[in-house]
């Protein structure tokens, strides 16, 4: 669900591309069997190939462009409080009077 429209486009594009490759190979085989000279692929295969290329690239770009991060160094720290940064685990003290006060 997270990949959304980009992943959908990419997968459809790859499947279309595979189908176009199969069609092209079949067309070549047909030409060889009937011993005709190769001129051009059929127009529907051409259109499908171009469409699959565009779909795949757009899908991948849409999918990956969401991973961009802001390059400002404090972009992900500016909403954090001082309590988060001031939390130094090396300076934790456990040997204090609380041990006696909060005895169970």
């Amino acid at each position: 669900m997270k990949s959304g429209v980009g992943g959908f486009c990419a997968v459809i594009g790859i499947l279309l591309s595979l189908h176009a490759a199969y069609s092209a190979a079949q067309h070549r085989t047909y030409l060889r069997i009937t011993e005709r000279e190769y001129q051009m692929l059929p127009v529907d295969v051409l259109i499908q190939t171009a469409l699959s290329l565009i779909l795949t690239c757009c899908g991948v770009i849409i999918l990956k462009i969401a991973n961009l991060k802001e390059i400002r160094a404090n972009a992900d720290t500016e909403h954090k409080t001082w309590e988060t940064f001031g939390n130094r685990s090396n300076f934790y003290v456990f040997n204090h009077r609380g041990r006696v006060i909060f005895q169970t």
Partner: protein
Amino acid sequence: MLELFCLCDFLVLNMDSSTNLPSGIPFSQISIMQNMGVIDYCRTSAAVASGCTAGILGLTGIYGFIFYFIFGALVSLALVVAIGKDWQKYFISKKQFVTHGYIGGVFVSFLRLYLYMYYRLIDYRLVNYRLFYIDQWLPN
């Protein structure tokens, strides 16, 4: 905050081109690297897809190269459109996502897929040689 800045050796000080002094905005090297990785990923996938397409279409000679360069320009355009107006949030300069990876390692992935598809779909010489060889030596 001062302590944080002292600890961060991955910060890059942004140099102002007019005064040649740091402009005061520190950049995060990790974010820059991740953004370049995203661009590399897009370029490589586009090169692989266009290589497959060139092979399927059966382009030969100079047309394969022309196809690659035209499609690379289209990918640059798509990246510019996709990143949009606020590209300065994600990249230091426009060069980083317009021309980065246009020529170089990405071209190799294009070439590999192109040749693979071409020899699989169009040029059957390798397969035909073997069949020819077997036909010659089989009795009748």
